[in-house]
């Protein structure tokens, strides 16, 4: 008995050794910045000299800052449009390309997937080239159809949609693959039985496909929402947050407030608010997911 305990303790040392580097990196590059960030949010830190404790002032100011509200609202709008749209397109593509009897499908899957490999900046550059107002191919095609050209980066609504298009285009591949994996798990005899019972395509989709994909959908929803909230380099490259601040989203706002305007304390308060939002989202989704599985 005593020997067993000893060997267990011995193994505990090994476990610590194996995990050591990751624990260390977790503390240094996650926990430490998180704690500093929380502290900064209560100070007027300007990245250089001032770091006075000012209590909740940053938070109070933020809640009265109309620019913060507009950025926050922009971000929410971006998330609420891009995430569901991306998911619908991914699911549609997955169902379209699920049929193994069609030969070209596996190749199409490769084509749809591969933009996910591009860097976020690369995605921005690609679409910036397409949406160029006086030279881009998008306006060329639109004018070819006899329509007036669109000021993609000078009208807020158009600029918003360029960010949505770029995000759906670059993000769909992964979600499509995950949905394909989910579709493959649904037993074929479920569909057969439903067909024999006289269910049409829509009914089969509504009553078999959708419920079977629920767990996968929850996972995709959570990761896509977090990814959408932290969008930064892609939009910065594409629209640079403009026109004005129409497509300035949270991370770019935090970055500019911190590093361009040297208001690190204020930026950190915004970071903490975003963190709480992400935390709430994952909390509610996990709860919802658990509930639906009961």
């Amino acid at each position, binding site marked *: 008995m005593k020997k067993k305990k000893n060997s267990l303790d011995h193994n505990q040392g090994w476990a610590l050794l194996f*995990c050591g580097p990751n624990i260390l*990196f977790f503390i240094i590059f996650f926990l430490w910045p998180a704690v500093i960030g929380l502290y900064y949010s209560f100070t007027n830190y300007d990245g250089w000299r001032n770091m006075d404790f000012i209590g909740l002032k940053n938070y109070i100011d933020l809640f009265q800052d109309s620019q913060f509200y507009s950025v926050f609202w922009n971000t929410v709008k971006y998330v609420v449009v891009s995430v569901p749209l991306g998911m619908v397109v991914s699911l549609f593509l997955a169902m379209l390309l699920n049929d193994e009897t069609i030969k070209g499908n596996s190749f199409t899957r490769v084509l749809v997937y591969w933009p996910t490999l591009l860097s976020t900046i690369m995605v921005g550059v690609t679409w910036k080239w397409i949406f160029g107002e006086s030279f881009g191919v998008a306006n060329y095609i639109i004018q070819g159809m006899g329509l007036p050209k669109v000021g993609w980066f000078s009208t807020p609504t158009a600029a918003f949609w360029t960010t949505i298009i770029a995000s759906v285009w670059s993000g769909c591949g992964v979600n499509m693959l995950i949905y394909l994996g989910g579709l493959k798990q649904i037993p074929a005899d479920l569909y057969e039985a439903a067909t024999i019972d006289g269910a049409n395509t829509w009914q089969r989709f509504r009553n078999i496909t959708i419920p079977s994909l629920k767990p996968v959908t929850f*996972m995709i929803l959570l990761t896509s929402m977090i990814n959408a909230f932290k969008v930064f380099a892609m939009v910065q490259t594409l629209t640079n947050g403009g026109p004005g601040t129409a497509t300035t989203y949270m991370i770019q706002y935090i970055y500019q407030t911190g590093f361009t305007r040297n208001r690190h304390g204020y930026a950190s308060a915004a970071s903490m608010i975003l963190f709480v939002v992400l935390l709430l989202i994952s909390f509610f989704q996990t709860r919802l997911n658990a509930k639906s599985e009961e």
Partner: protein
Amino acid sequence: MVKASNRTIIIKSIVAIIFALIWVFPVVWLLLSSFKPGSELFTYPLTLFPKDWSADGYVSTFQRYNILQSTYNTAFITIFATIITLVISCMCGFALAKYHYKWLSAFFMCMLATTMLPTEVIMSPSFTVILNLGLYNSLWGAIIPTVGTMTGVFLMRQFFISVPNELLEAARIDGANEGRSFLQIMVPLCRSQIAILAIFSFRWRWNDYIWPLLALTDPTKYTMQLQLRTLSGAESVDWSALLSFSVITMIPVLVVFIIFNRQIMSSEVSSGVKG
């Protein structure tokens, strides 16, 4: 599956082809544009293929921007970060799968929590950390912070859970210590997982923007992404250089994808998260 009729197959194929074209068009357009001479880039009517093919954009990009330096920097970061990621993720994943202590599961929960607070959200304090560690303006500043990845650890843990405990027990009975059985039995088993993580890590680090942005300030230390960002963020964008430069940056990832596309796409389903 319900047997599809010929008509459905034809309709499905056509729709699939349309989507494939939509998805592939932006990058093909960028690629073909990069071979147009500067005068042809902005003159309507636009043509899909260059009227006369020219590599001028590439030549001037090579002459005016220090591409070799930024390629070297990016490759340096990618290679060392990937090696360290592989070693520590393999060890940590093994420990999380094969030992059962309370603090280990607590640590695993902590790792999962890192997705809730990505570095993007806390850039100011992360910068402070880099500064305090003396990593500022060093390539290691874009390497060390990135090596502990939740996805990597998770991938390895999932694999080691599927390895039967008996293997480890047998080695213990034979008197091998944990380190030896890990190195001699476990590591060889997970070769294919290591390959997958290596491919993922290569892509993450090659495309990484946030940590190089925080850590590197000297243009001679810039990675390709930082240089791409500088080019595309300029007041008046030099499109000719930007197009050819962006094509150059995506070549390595494209080559790796062409070689390993089967492995990449099937492992994406099981991990599904970004590092």
